[in-house]
């Protein structure tokens, strides 16, 4: 092999090596794109729901209440017969079976929706109004194009007759898509068309709030101690080793800790944001302490010495001068820690947050779900409608995480002083 050939080979090796590097980065980036694209394409349709425009005649004979009835009376009144009478008029059905199939095109909440319309205007008796009633999950998925029509009938959840009605609705422009308020306001439900993340949002909010209230002060105080006051001795070393190890302990171990200490020993209520918040706080604590210490360390000693020189005590120099300067870094570290806590699932499963909770929690000691746990729960459900709900929940979760991370980066870039 001549010198030139050898050199050429070496340069080719160089190019190959560079290419491997670029490919790796490209693979990683490609995966981010695929993941996000996959979630968005599945989930974006969940923000709309399919509604069927139906004429409702408020027949005096079918209702026990009068025009101008009080709110209580309306809540107690039975709208079931009225609903049935009106819904079966939506399409000319021949017999009972066909009527049943027709009724199954509407969601389980049709009665409540009619009631709500009457609550809004209690002078409707004897009048006819058009209402947009939520369609059932099967029709919803069909209308969104997520459901193949060309399967044989026995493998479909929708019968041929229901398809005929659906086509009739489409032809007469009786079916349309509205903003899905249920997705944001409702709690969990067995029916995909009625299930929402309202409860999970509130549960996550309470959990993260408790986590913040517990973890932030303790983390800041601990890092101030370790960085500014701790003598160099065995105890300090031991604390430091502990913090570093805790940051690497798998999150599920914190779930076991919570199960044994918080639930079995102290007997806090299961499945509640309170327990979730405490668990997440214990888990997040070391992850906040580490950036907090780094930002305290970044404040140059001259600041401390300046304060001491004009007669401040050690405490005053730290709390009046060092801590305010380290605050942007501290806050951004805390926000990133909280973002991790927000996406954490495994420990919450162990403390029982997988319970099926329909009600939206009104306090941190009510049973509740949380956003990531809701993702886990819905992903285990067989109904097709839950796939888009799960993806949409992930979209919400990712949005929160992105916002939190942006705030963290902004705080650091805008307010942090560079010292060199």
């Amino acid at each position, binding site marked *: 092999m001549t010198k030139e050939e050898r050199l050429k080979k070496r340069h080719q*090796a160089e190019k190959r*090596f560079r290419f491997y*590097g670029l490919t790796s980065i490209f693979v990683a980036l490609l995966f981010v794109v695929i993941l996000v694209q996959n979630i968005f394409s599945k989930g974006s349709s969940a923000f709309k729901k399919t509604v069927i425009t139906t004429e409702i005649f408020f027949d005096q004979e079918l209702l026990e209440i009068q025009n101008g009835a009080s709110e209580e009376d309306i809540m107690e009144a039975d709208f079931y017969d009225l609903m049935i009478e009106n819904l079966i008029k939506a399409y000319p059905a021949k017999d009972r079976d066909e009527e049943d199939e027709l009724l199954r095109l509407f969601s389980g909440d049709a009665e409540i929706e009619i009631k709500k319309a009457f609550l809004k205007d209690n002078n409707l008796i004897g009048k006819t109004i058009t209402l947009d009633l939520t369609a059932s999950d099967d029709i919803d998925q069909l209308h969104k194009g997520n459901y193949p029509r060309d399967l044989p009938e026995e493998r479909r959840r929708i019968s041929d007759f229901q398809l005929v009605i659906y086509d009739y609705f489409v032809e007469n422009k009786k079916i349309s898509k509205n903003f899905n308020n249920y997705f944001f306001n409702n709690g969990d439900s067995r029916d995909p068309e009625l299930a929402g993340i309202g409860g999970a949002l509130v549960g996550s909010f309470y959990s993260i709030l408790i986590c913040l209230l517990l973890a932030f002060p303790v983390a800041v105080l601990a890092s101030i101690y370790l960085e500014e006051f701790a003598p160099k001795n065995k105890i300090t070393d031991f604390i430091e080793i502990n913090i570093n190890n805790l940051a690497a302990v*798998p999150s599920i171990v914190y779930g076991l*800790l919570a199960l044994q200490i918080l639930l079995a020993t*102290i007997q806090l209520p299961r499945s509640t944001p309170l327990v979730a918040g405490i668990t997440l706080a214990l888990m997040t604590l070391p992850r906040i302490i580490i950036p907090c210490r780094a930002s305290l360390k970044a404040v140059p000693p001259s600041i401390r010495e300046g304060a001491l020189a004009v007669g401040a005590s050690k405490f005053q120099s730290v709390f009046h001068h060092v801590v305010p300067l380290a605050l942007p870094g501290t806050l951004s570290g805390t926000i990133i820690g909280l973002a991790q806590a927000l996406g954490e699932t*495994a420990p919450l499963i162990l403390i029982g947050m997988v319970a099926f909770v329909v009600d939206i929690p009104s306090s941190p000691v009510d049973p509740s779900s949380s956003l990531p746990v809701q993702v*886990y729960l819905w992903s285990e459900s067989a109904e097709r409608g839950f796939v888009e709900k799960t993806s949409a929940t992930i979209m919400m979760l990712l949005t929160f995480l992105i916002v939190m991370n942006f705030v963290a980066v902004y705080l650091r870039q805008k307010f942090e002083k560079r010292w060199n």
Partner: protein
Amino acid sequence: MNIVLIFLISIFSISLFFYGKSKTKTISIKDNIKLNALPKFYGYYLVLWCSIPALVFLLVWSLFEPTIIKSIIIETAANQGAVFNDKNEANLIYEKIKAIHLGTYFGDIDSILKESALAYAKFINLFTNSKVVLIFGIIIASVVYSLKKIRNNNKARDDVEVILKGLLFVSSLIAILTTLGIIFSLLFESIKFFSVINIFDYLFGTNWSPQRAFVRDASSITAAEYEELKDAFGFIPLIAGTSFIAFIAMLVAVPVGLFSGIYMAEYASTKVRRVSKPIIEILAGIPTVVYGFFAALTVGPFFRQVGENLGLTVSSESALAAGLIMGIMIIPYVSSLSDDVINSVPQSLRDGSYAVGATKSETIKQVVIPAALPGIIGSVLLAVSRAIGETMIVVMAAGLAANLTINPLESTTTITTQIVMILVGDQEFDSPKTQSAFALGLTLFIATLVLNYIAQRAVKKYREKYD
């Protein structure tokens, strides 16, 4: 009740603050003492003394009150003649008594329950009253003590700072308390587990099927039952499955992560670096439940489809899908750590290599990487510890049955999956099945601890070499 107490304590503290502040003002004017601290520090001093002992007492009391009341009530119920065979039944009776007391119990109430409910009401009352009395006693004692201390004291600032420093120290001790809590809670149940199941049967058993261990009192297991039980808790298939999935993950994460790290550190312009580094780090910020969803609903079925087309039987919960997605999750850990490590290799080593005519890639391969190797191994070990502790991806995308297999297309299970499967839903405490989850947790905790320790040592040693 507690909220009222906390409110009262804060009211006292605030009024004491103003009292202390004004008092020292008058003292210093009247007696012409030169104070070494601002008047507000005397206020702070009183506040700290008034609130901290009372709040600590309240916290400790609230932590232990339910357990103590419960054991007393169960004992009184037993004395009254209530019959229960194990802890679960005792818990049930306790819950019933509590519900009767609150008026939310609608079942039949017999005389035993009724008597116990009355006793419960009595104890609750007694405890609440003594709590209030003790708290007020503590407040009065500490306020009297602190008022005495601020008299003739011109260094209140130093005193306040000593207390605050103690507070800082206590905050940093919480890390130790958490570690102790983890060790205690894992050991406590694990010891119970190992008192039933021989530790060697656990460590070397090749069959994991805890569902065979029905609920039963762990303390009274016969020899015949044990023969059946000891085969149910074999750890080998779990560690095999965990390592196998982690191995697949590392097959993805190490090459991709390492090459991106090298490219970022050695080739990329600052512009490329500034854009691509945060994007890769997005991968680390995505919640694992999202990866799990993606693996279970998209990747798993996709692999099965591809396998079907190729004539292979691929489980839709294959180890391959879970491992692949886990590997992608871990890429940023490997890449950013190895990026850091490579960046801290001194430039002089590279310059020396260039000077003898090596190309850039030759320099990297023969000089930079060998120099950075301990650090790179450390970062890979950290990634491995993350992989074996990862839960949601494997819970959602890997299988539930423990198969001993090395075929990536079959489903296997992992330690974390089994912990979740055992503990999800209703658990019976004191059954070997529940306790086995804690034994698994302990094993996992020790494994990650050892890996992290080795990794941190490796990285530290490497850092010291070039600092």
